[in-house]
């Protein structure tokens, strides 16, 4: 336990020292504030409070930003140490590989959670102050923060996986960028193309929603949208979310971090420094 904690504490120190924590928090804050103010126009016409509109905009933002920030910290975790020659040294100490990976994960996730909570939280507070908020929109904000942290956890673990499989930190960075592109952009484009090609509509009705929630980024979107009528109304994305049972998106987003971490752990086990 002390080993796990000392690795986590050291990783946290590194994130603070190289200003990653500060930069990530500022990025989250700026984007969230910008979206909240820019997106406040349609409040009256849709008939929801300003916080709901703000949460809707921030949901779209988080789909892109949470995976990106997570991958930015995690790609270096194993490949970077291997490149510096410190991985073999670290592994010659009594700490197990699982302990090392979990320690890094805890610190990275805490940093991500901090940036998300400050960024979304303050933007939400400002929206609530200027445009009003209700219990439902506050709940939507809390859900946005929680699910963003889960989404971040998925991509932290995927980053470790890529880092364990890469020979160098540069290769890990490249693979991470590819991973982000596939999960966040290309997957959706592919699904969209399939829906357009689907003449009979069978695919669109029965398979498409499941394929969508199989991707953690889309599961995140569906969870946030389907759980709140206001957000769904504001985003105009009601159809796809309603075709699925309520538990589908949360289940996907909760299983993904566990699955990705297990994969990363297995890949790390095979690394010979």
């Amino acid at each position, binding site marked *: 336990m002390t080993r796990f904690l000392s690795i986590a504490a*050291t990783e946290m120190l590194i994130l603070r020292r*190289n200003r990653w924590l500060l930069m990530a928090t500022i990025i989250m804050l700026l984007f969230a504030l910008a979206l909240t103010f820019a997106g406040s126009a349609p409040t009256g016409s849709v008939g929801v409070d300003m916080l709901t509109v703000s949460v809707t905009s921030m949901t779209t933002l988080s789909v892109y930003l949470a995976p990106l920030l997570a991958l930015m910290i995690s790609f270096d975790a194993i490949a970077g140490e291997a490149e510096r020659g*410190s991985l*073999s040294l670290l592994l010659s100490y009594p700490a197990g590989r699982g302990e090392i990976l979990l320690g890094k994960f805890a610190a990275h996730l805490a940093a991500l959670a901090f940036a998300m909570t400050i960024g979304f939280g303050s933007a939400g507070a400002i929206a609530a102050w200027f445009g009003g908020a209700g219990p439902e929109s506050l709940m939507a904000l809390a859900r946005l923060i929680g699910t963003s942290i889960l989404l971040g956890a998925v991509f932290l673990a995927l980053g470790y996986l890529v880092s364990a499989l890469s020979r160098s930190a540069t290769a890990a960075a490249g693979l991470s960028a590819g991973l982000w592109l596939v999960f966040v952009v290309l997957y959706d484009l592919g699904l969209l193309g399939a829906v357009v090609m689907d003449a009979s509509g069978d695919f669109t009705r029965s398979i498409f929603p499941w394929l969508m929630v199989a991707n953690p980024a889309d599961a995140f979107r569906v969870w946030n949208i389907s759980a709140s009528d206001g957000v769904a109304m504001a985003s105009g994305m009601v159809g796809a979310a309603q075709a699925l049972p309520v538990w589908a998106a949360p289940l996907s987003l909760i299983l993904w971090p566990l699955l990705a971490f297990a994969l990363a752990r297995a890949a790390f086990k095979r690394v010979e420094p």
Partner: protein
Amino acid sequence: MTDSVLTIDSVRKDRGKTTVLDDVSLRVAPGERVALLGHNGAGKSTLIKLILGLTPLTDGQIRVADAKPGSAVARRTTAYLPEAVSFHPALTGREQLRLFARLDGQKADVAGLLDRVGLGDAMDRRIGAYSKGMRQRLGLAQVLLGNPKVALLDEPTSGLDPISRQDLYTIIDELAAGGTAVLIASHALTEVEAQTDRIAILRKGIKVADDTLANLSARAGLPTRLRIRATGEHAEQIAQATGGTRINGAAVEILCPPDRKMEELRRVAAMGDVVADIEMTPPRLEDLYRHYAKEGAQ
């Protein structure tokens, strides 16, 4: 047999179709300093990684303090200094060493250790600003954590200036004096000569020698070089009398096998005035190393 703390028995390691190590056996007793020599790719680093349990054995057995490599006991009792190690540039030397001390699970005087390796003034500076030699010293400081039973040092002097090397060997001597078995993989032959008790030589994954320097020289039968400086014009006369070769106007060089060295010296001494000086060069580690590393290569 039981008195060695590091026991390597008929170890074999294959990587794909190539055999990196073949039937290598080596024992290191507590307090013993053993040099592991070999060309690049001879298998030194692979052997160290096998001892650390970082890569699996193909065949044979390794015991570290009577435990399996990579087991909790083995890891707690083994200290390791990787070749050209680097650390996270954002941490300070003190923070990095504190992490290692906590991972080791023992109370340690982190500042005292850093002082001992000569990083007393730099311990609160970031490692990113350290020179290569300073990083190597930091690596050495973590070797000293928690009184290891076995210390594995991979090219510990690479990138160090001569004074730092001397400091490093002083610390290694102290370690060994405290009962640590020290295995040093090295290219720096001349240093190892004075600083180790025994020398093992690896050639293409096979151990070709494992003995004290004196025994290795005797077995190799490498000649001792005698250089005789003549007074006046007597060089030619000495060359003819001894059967040596003239190397310049006033000196003659004789190569004689170890067992005939004293006989040759007496003969030269008997020549009297014509000899101004004798310089004797026993075979150096370089010669030995070349002898054993090439033996059977043809």
